[in-house]
């Protein structure tokens, strides 16, 4: 840096000398696109050797005459050419969307993108922010190769983020670092406050975070003020409406009754009274369209006010943010509301710099109730209950306790949950208060002779308090869904995280050698306290507080954990051709026994800038730069519960002697004393190229990651005499590998400018060990076994429908000799106890039916500008995987009493045999088996248009008092190209059945308008 500034001084002096010879002087001001001054920009008089640089305030003065062209360029901006007039020249520089000169935030520092040797993806925040969401991890979707984001569509949804495949069975979310605070949750931050997001994907980039980094690291920085800038007041706001645009086609009353009766008759039973036209109880006047009744238009709005600026020695940024989302389901939620206040400041004097940020968030979320303990177990999430509810159940019924309708198994033959009713009766919310702050001090210990040494100490504290409240009044929605007595749950959780970090940074350039050294130390402490109160025995009128219940009870527990670390890193480059980075971190974790507490996580990477070699003769307008890089290293994962290595004493082991009650005590649960880190070893190789004079950027990489000692619950023999026979031990080995491509095209000349960037990544996954006896792990319709990928679909092989009795007779017996009829599903006899087909369809005939993990993930974004208009489009998707949809299967049941998909009108009947939908049978135990029968496993490939946003920037100072203003309109989730018949092909799921959609909430199409105004 020092050399660069010396160089600049020389240039400035030269410019001054030159100016003595000039006839006139032109003055001007260089600003960026949002109006901030750009210092250090080079201003050159076209065709002359006259140049200067802009000062702190962006101002410059140059020897030139009106009419002469000035060429202005600056690192990170597109160069421009303007013709000098008579007055001061106002120059506006536009930032480069993607540029190798960009500075990238990495662990404990920054690096120029062109010097990176690890696998690092940056998110273009300006574009990403155009997607509105309550959770900023959603912004990663489709924007970084190798990062897969899955999410449901309700307000307050928690997205799941997976970086580079399935490498663990436990917690898989990446490790977030917010403004240098490691391990901070990002859920309560406002996307408006985010300046940058960087994803560290390989060992070289992430190993500096050691034991926490195996799932990848996402580094987030928040907005700060700029020095020497007058206070700028900015308002950002939008308002929009949400509409569910997907509809499941279900049968109406007449169709439902027809199908249900047919299913009864086929099983030799009589139709249910409600469906039987000859019965006095026949329902002919109710035809509820549950999706129409239960879905409403949602609203989302966000208002953000920020004030930022700075003096010569200080900066500040204050922001207030309000986010409110009212969901699309009728009743008490889902809604999510959040208030955020944020302050970032810094000040410096001499060698000392201090700074802090403080973030306070309050949120209130009405959750869509899905509680097995209040409802019956086994029911799907509320959206599923809504879709599969029978049309002959009324939404409202004034004769029932709560005024909502219900169903009755004897009468309707169904126990359908009235999801609108239950969502209107239960009061279920979570209040979250989070206080999150950090303060740091930095000393420039040495700043001379080319040596730079900085010491930084940083402390942070993060406390989240929740109140989890559920009031369940007495309700009756049919006999399966009733609770005669009111109950109240009023629980509280307190999460505390504190950390202190100390680092020393040193850098120096010796001739062609450039060295940067980092050493540091960190201590993190976390604790969790849960206090649950429960009351019952309420009498009307109800006062839903714990004290007004006749009996109340409480429970509580707490846990603590700590992580102590030392780390160091050396970055070295020679002649801007050879790059080397090596790092080592040592972590100690309280989650493991003292003998296993410490782990070492080394990593190294090298880079070679081929295009800077003397022998490189490829013209710059073809290949502007080319860098090869490779890395290798180890990362850790300690995402398990606390204290698992410790055996504990059960103090409630009761017995009776002489008629008296005694509580005995000893160890009843097996501990995992040898538990230790999961280790993930990643090799990464790739290249970065800039082609066609900087118009095209292209990066590609390959990674091979092996996770060993993966923590997994293995089955141990009951002869051990413990109560828990699934202790967590380090037993499994998983392998992931993949390719990642990122390409970007920039067109920045003329009035029409655009950037197109796209990324594509592949995932290949294999289980190498499962531990213990290597017994497979089963998920819902899925199996995880050695030599296979995690959670593949598993079941029987469809072999058509039985044509006639002869077909049945000649086929293997199915499932212990079920009585089959033509129109039932035929399964292939593929094996038996001796590994050969045995004429019996049973558990031996199940096999792998396809992958539940997308083989490809891709994202595309386009941003374009024409004059004052700007347009942004982003899309993302996944391909090559199969989805097992609970909702779809429920709608295709042939036994039981839910509503049907209209596809079922095409079921097999003796007169309609040209179909692949089996016959209806109220006693069916055959057709519903996990299998690959048509529709059971659906192609998950999709491409969703996430945002389409059009903006217009008003001329500066068009309105008095408003410095700049932009208005925009956005359509979010415009459309999804998908074959999947459920709602979201990117649902969240469990690790052992990644392809099973239990009932994810649809993503609404959002139409919103917004403004950005600066004063």
């Amino acid at each position, binding site marked *: 840096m020092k050399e660069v500034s010396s160089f600049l001084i020389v240039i400035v002096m030269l410019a001054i000398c030159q100016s003595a010879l000039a006839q006139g002087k032109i003055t001007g001001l260089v600003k960026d696109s949002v109006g901030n001054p750009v210092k250090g920009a080079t201003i050159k008089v076209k065709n002359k050797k006259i140049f200067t640089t802009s000062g702190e305030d962006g101002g410059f003065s140059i020897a030139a005459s009106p009419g002469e062209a000035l060429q202005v360029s600056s690192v990170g901006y597109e160069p421009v050419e303007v013709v000098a007039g008579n007055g001061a020249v106002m120059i506006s520089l536009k930032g480069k969307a993607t540029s190798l000169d960009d500075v990238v935030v990495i662990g404990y520092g920054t690096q120029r993108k062109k010097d990176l040797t690890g696998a690092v993806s940056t998110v273009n925040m300006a574009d990403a922010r155009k997607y509105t969401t309550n959770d900023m991890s959603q912004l990663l979707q489709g924007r970084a190769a190798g990062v897969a984001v899955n999410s449901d569509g309700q307000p307050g949804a928690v997205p799941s983020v997976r970086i580079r495949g399935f490498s663990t069975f436990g917690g898989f979310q990446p490790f977030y670092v917010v403004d240098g605070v490691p391990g901070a949750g990002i859920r309560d931050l406002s996307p408006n406050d985010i300046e940058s997001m960087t994803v560290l994907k390989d060992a070289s980039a992430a190993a500096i975070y050691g034991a926490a980094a195996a799932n990848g690291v996402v580094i987030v920085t928040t907005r700060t003020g700029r020095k020497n800038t007058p206070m700028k007041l900015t308002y950002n706001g939008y308002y929009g409406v949400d509409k569910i645009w997907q509809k499941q086609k279900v049968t109406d009353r007449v169709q439902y009754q027809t199908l249900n009766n047919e299913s009864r008759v086929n099983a030799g039973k009589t139709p249910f009274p409600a469906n039987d036209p000859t019965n006095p109880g026949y329902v002919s006047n109710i035809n509820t369209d549950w999706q129409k009744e239960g879905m409403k238009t949602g609203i989302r709005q966000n208002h953000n006010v920020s004030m930022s600026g700075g003096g010569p020695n200080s900066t500040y940024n204050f922001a207030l943010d309000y986010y409110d989302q009212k969901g699309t389901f009728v009743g008490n939620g889902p809604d999510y509301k959040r208030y955020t206040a944020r302050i970032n400041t810094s000040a410096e004097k001499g060698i000392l710099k201090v700074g802090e940020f403080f973030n306070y968030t309050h949120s209130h979320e009405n959750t869509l109730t899905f509680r097995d303990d209040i409802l019956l177990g086994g029911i799907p999430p509320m959206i599923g209950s809504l879709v599969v509810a029978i049309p002959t159940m009324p939404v409202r019924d004034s004769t029932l306790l709560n005024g909502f309708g219900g169903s009755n198994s004897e009468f309707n033959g169904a126990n359908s949950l009235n999801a609108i009713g239950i969502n209107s009766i239960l009061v279920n919310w979570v209040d979250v208060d989070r206080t999150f702050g950090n303060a740091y001090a930095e000393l420039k210990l040495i700043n001379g002779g080319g040596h730079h040494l900085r010491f930084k100490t940083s402390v942070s504290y993060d406390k989240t308090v929740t109140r989890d409240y559920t009031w369940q009044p007495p309700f009756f929605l049919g006999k399966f869904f009733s609770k005669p007595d009111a109950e109240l749950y009023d629980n509280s959780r307190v999460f505390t995280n504190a950390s202190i970090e100390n680092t020393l940074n040193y850098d120096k350039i010796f001739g062609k050698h450039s060295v940067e050294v980092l050493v540091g130390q960190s201590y993190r402490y976390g604790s969790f306290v849960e206090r649950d109160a429960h009351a019952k025995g309420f009498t009307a009128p109800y006062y839903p507080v714990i004290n007004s219940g006749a009996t109340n009870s409480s429970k509580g527990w707490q846990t603590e954990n*700590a992580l102590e670390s030392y780390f160091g890193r050396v970055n070295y480059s020679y002649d801007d051709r050879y790059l080397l980075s090596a790092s080592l971190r040592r972590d100690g974790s*309280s989650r493991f026994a003292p003998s296993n507490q410490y782990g070492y996580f080394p990593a190294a990477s090298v880079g070679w800038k081929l295009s800077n070699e003397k022998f490189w003769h490829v013209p710059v307008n073809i290949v502007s730069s080319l860098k090869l890089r490779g890395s290798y290293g180890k990362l850790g994962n300690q995402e398990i519960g606390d204290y698992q290595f410790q055996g504990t004493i059960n103090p409630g082991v009761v017995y009776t002697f002489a008629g008296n009650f005694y509580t005995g005590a000893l160890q009843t649960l097996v501990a995992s004393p040898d538990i230790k880190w999961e280790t993930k070893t990643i090799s990464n190789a790739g290249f970065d190229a800039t082609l066609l004079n900087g118009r095209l950027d292209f990066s590609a990489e390959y990674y091979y990651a092996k996770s060993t000692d993966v923590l997994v619950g293995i089955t141990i023999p009951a002869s051990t005499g413990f109560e828990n026979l699934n202790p967590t031990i380090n037993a499994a080995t998983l392998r992931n590998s993949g390719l990642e491509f990122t390409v970007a095209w920039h067109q920045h000349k003329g009035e029409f400018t655009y950037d197109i960037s796209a990324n594509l990544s592949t995932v290949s996954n294999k289980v190498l060990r499962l531990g213990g006896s290597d017994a497979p792990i089963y998920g819902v319709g899925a199996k995880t076994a050695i030599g296979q990928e995690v959670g593949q679909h598993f079941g029987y092989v469809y072999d058509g429908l039985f044509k006639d009795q002869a077909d049945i007779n000649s086929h293997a017996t199915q499932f212990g000799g079920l009585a089959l009829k033509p129109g039932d599903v035929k399964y292939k006899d593929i094996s038996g106890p001796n590994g050969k087909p045995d004429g019996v369809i049973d558990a031996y005939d199940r096999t792998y039916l396809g992958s539940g993990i997308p083989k490809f993930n891709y994202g595309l974004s386009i941003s374009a500008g024409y004059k004052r208009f700007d347009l942004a489009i982003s899309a993302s998707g996944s391909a090559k995987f199969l989805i097992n949809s609970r909702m779809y299967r429920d709608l295709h049941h042939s036994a039981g009493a839910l509503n049907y998909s209209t596809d079922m009108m095409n079921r097999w009947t003796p007169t309609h045999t040209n179909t692949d939908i089996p016959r209806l049978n109220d006693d069916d135990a055959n057709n519903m088996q996990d299998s690959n029968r048509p529709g059971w496993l659906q192609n998950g490939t999709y491409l969703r248009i996430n945002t389409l946003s059009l903006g217009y920037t008003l001329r500066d100072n068009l309105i008095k008092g408003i410095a700049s203003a932009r208005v925009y309109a956005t359509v979010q989730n415009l459309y999804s190209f998908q074959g999947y018949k459920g709602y979201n092909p990117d649902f969240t799921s469990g690790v052992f059945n990644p392809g099973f959609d239990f009932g994810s909430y649809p993503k609404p199409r959002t139409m919103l308008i917004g403004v950005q105004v600066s004063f």
Partner: protein
Amino acid sequence: MKRIIYLFAGLVFILSGCRKKLELSNPNLQTTADFWKTREQAYAGSTAIYNALTVDGTYMRSFPGLTDSRGDDFTGDSPWLDLVLTGEFIIPSTSAPVFWIWRDHYLIVNRANQVLEHVSKYPESVLSTQEKNRILGQAYFLRGLAYYNLATTFKIVPVITKVAETPEDYFAATATEDDLWNQIISDLKAAEANLPISYANVDGLDKGEIGRATQGAASGLLGKAYLYRKDYTNAGAQFQKFFTGGPLAGVYSLMQDYRDNFRDFKENNAESLFEVQFTEGQGSDINWCCDPTASWKQVQAISVTYGMEGAGFSDYLPTRWIYNEYKKEKTVDGKDDPRMLVTIASYEPADNSVLAYTRPWWNPDTAIYPRKYTNDGVGNGKTTEVAAQSGINYRVLRYADILLMYAEVLNEQNKTPEAYSYIQQVRDRARLPDLATVKPGMTQAQMRDQLAHERALEFAIEGQRINDLIRWGWFYDPAKLAELKSHDRDFNSWTPGKEYLPIPQGELDVNKNLKPNPANG
């Protein structure tokens, strides 16, 4: 520069004091490392072993049920197929109740191992030698009892005598049948040596804690183990301890009323050597299984399982053979054997038996049901069974068994005439005539049959019959097998080896060191 490095080094040094903070202990529960320090903890540990006797797979329900159902005196009659198939000797190795029996007996083993390992290290200053011996003695007894039940039920199982230290220890290998029985005998010997005859006047926290294992329990079960192994010399020596001149002489006697052995208000009586304590009214969560809590009940579910149609689940029925067996011999008053109506609920107007659960008999007049271990006719006022709410203790070993086993030893030692008086003590209580008068001068073989008959009547539905049949070798004696088949149709589906319960399939799958037993075939 140097100063700064020193400064930083100093800072790092200070901060490395954080290391201590990595040693965080669970604030919710005591850890094993902090336990086994106080006298109270030693007692608490021993109490916790007994808890494992009160779960589904031990004496709460499935162990008595699946043992009784394999006798020729009992048969399954349940929609729960496992209960029926067990009686028919075709139970698959994947059966859940079979697994529970396995699992829950090993709970006893593990807990006893913990107590033996830790309490033996207690210093005299914390726990007196007498107290320590009693606690260790109980652990030996309970482990011996668990292995006795496992050996008689599964024939060959792993013998685990230490707390697992490493994950490799979880996968215990099957022991030979000899090693298994040697362990049972050695445990019971150690128990006998350490246990008091009574807790009434011991010096310790266990004073008066009736229900803890006694020397009599250990001596008796040890004798029974020797008898099972046909070691008549040692068996005889054990049983002699209960008679004149022995250390246990006069401690035990038969209750006058046979029914007192199955009443919830005559528990831990003079005839009882060891019983599992069940109590109504305590706790809120039923003690079926899993990690115990202080809110556990202490109830058994045998009563409701055995209870007749209309009062209980009636999952099992007594066979007609055992009913008829009781009718074979009248009492000295010319009446039916009084043990029949304690064992079997039957409508017998001639015997003035027209009630069930204090209500007028409501089932078909010809139907018979189990009564032993139900609340029917107990005299506790119950009019029905309530699911898992019975407090009737399970009698594991009775003095009547000591008498009949000693008679068997004498017969096997060719002292057949001496056997008469011991058998007669049991017959006298049932008011049956003097055996020496009605069947004088029996040969050894005749006496064996007589003892089989006597034992069948005295111990019907007490989890004894199948073990007697196995040890007498009746399954492999064609004449006897034919007899069994005539007693109980269930025996028609028996095939060699199936007299035992199979080793649970899940255990075989997960533990490569485990061997299948003959019932797995």
